[in-house]
């Protein structure tokens, strides 16, 4: 963890630097706000605490604090002012500009040390909170069994993609995938085996997709795939590749080798509409893909059907 110390007076700066180093930080020194700002921009991902002198030439501590707070950083930066100002008005201005604490100079060593430790504790808490939030976010958007996007996040991303395609006048394709006779797997081998089949299907399909394609779990044994396409033909190729990835190789579930197939329905369109209409555009596309899927099932399963008007 690094600390930024910005102080124009050399002896004071060295003194603070030593105290902060004793607390286990690597110290980045700057002798005015301008230098402090350029160091901050380079090192912002490593700086967890900043000690800023208030009165400095060029950019003062308050202005530097405001700039730091306006900069997006992944973690919290604890900012402490070092000032000989004692007016309540000044203290309020400092804290309002985004400062967490202030120390008046000349300071008492033990007090500065304790306050640096407070900053360190808050930085640690903040880091834990951010980690927990990241984990919660991942859980909130993921289907726990397959690790794919869950239905809500899937819809959110598909809406974004459809809106993007509508703005850019591009084709967008939607593929609905349903596992053929999935109930038989569950009935014959139990739900645990069924779960393993679902998981492996999710993995096999994901391998066939490009980074900008979207896949999520739509229902119990149904998946939705969103694919931006340049040419009308290529969408069927993608669907065929997906179909082939399932049917070409049996599933090894315990001692059983299962031949499993999927049916796919595709629709493709240049979506047209306002942002608020996107959800309807998506619903229409799903309906069309669904009716193509129905035809694929009717026609004997293990096949891809493209929706036609």
């Amino acid at each position, binding site marked *: 963890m690094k600390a930024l110390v910005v102080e*124009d*007076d*050399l*002896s*004071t700066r060295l003194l603070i630097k030593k105290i902060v180093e*004793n607390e286990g930080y690597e110290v980045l020194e700057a002798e005015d706000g301008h230098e402090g700002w350029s160091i901050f921009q380079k090192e912002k991902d490593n700086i967890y605490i900043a000690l800023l002198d208030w009165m400095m030439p060029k950019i003062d501590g308050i202005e530097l604090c405001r700039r730091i707070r306006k900069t997006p950083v992944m973690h919290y930066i604890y900012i402490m002012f070092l000032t*000989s100002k004692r007016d309540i008005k000044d203290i309020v201005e400092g804290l309002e500009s985004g400062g967490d604490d202030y120390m008046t100079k*000349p*300071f008492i*060593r033990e007090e500065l040390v304790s306050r640096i430790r407070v900053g360190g504790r808050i930085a640690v808490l903040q880091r834990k909170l951010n980690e927990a939030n990241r984990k919660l976010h991942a859980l909130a958007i993921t289907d726990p069994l397959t690790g794919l996007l869950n239905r809500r996040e899937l819809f959110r991303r598909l809406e974004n993609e459809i809106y993007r395609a509508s703005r850019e006048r591009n084709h967008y394709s939607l593929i609905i995938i349903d596992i053929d006779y999935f109930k038989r797997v569950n009935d014959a081998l139990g739900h645990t085996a069924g779960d393993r089949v679902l998981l492996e299907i999710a993995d096999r399909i994901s391998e066939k997709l490009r980074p900008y394609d979207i896949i999520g779990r739509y229902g119990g044994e149904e998946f939705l795939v969103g694919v931006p396409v340049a040419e009308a033909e290529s969408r069927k190729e993608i669907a065929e590749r997906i179909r082939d990835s399932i049917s070409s190789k049996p599933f090894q579930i315990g001692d059983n080798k299962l031949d499993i197939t999927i049916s796919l329905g595709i629709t493709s369109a240049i979506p047209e509409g306002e942002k608020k209409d996107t959800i309807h555009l998506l619903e229409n596309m799903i309906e069309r893909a669904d009716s193509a899927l129905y035809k694929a099932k009717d026609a004997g399963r293990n096949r891809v059907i493209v929706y036609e008007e």
Partner: protein
Amino acid sequence: MDNIAPVFDMDYARKITDGDMEFLKELIEIFKTDCPEKLAGISRAIKEKNFKAIDETAHSLKGSSGNLGLTRVYELSWEIEKMGKAKNMDGANKSFEQLEEEFERFKNFVSKPGWEEK
């Protein structure tokens, strides 16, 4: 003016450097090098009756002296800083003379062998 406050608050200086005398000496050397320039800045600002400059230059010396335990230099620069802020120069020259004297006394103090053992 009586010199009630000590020229150099050794207790404070020891505490702030956590008893690291070598480090304290290093800081004092830096201060001794920087101080004449700061004094010259204050002197110039007083001559030019530039209140803003008086405020800033005295403020700067106040900061560095205060953190090293140079109590008298700290207090006198504070006085001068306040004059700059209040745009009132009454007694500024006298305070500045005292400031120079206090800096000399401090230099004498730390030039005597064994001062750090007191």
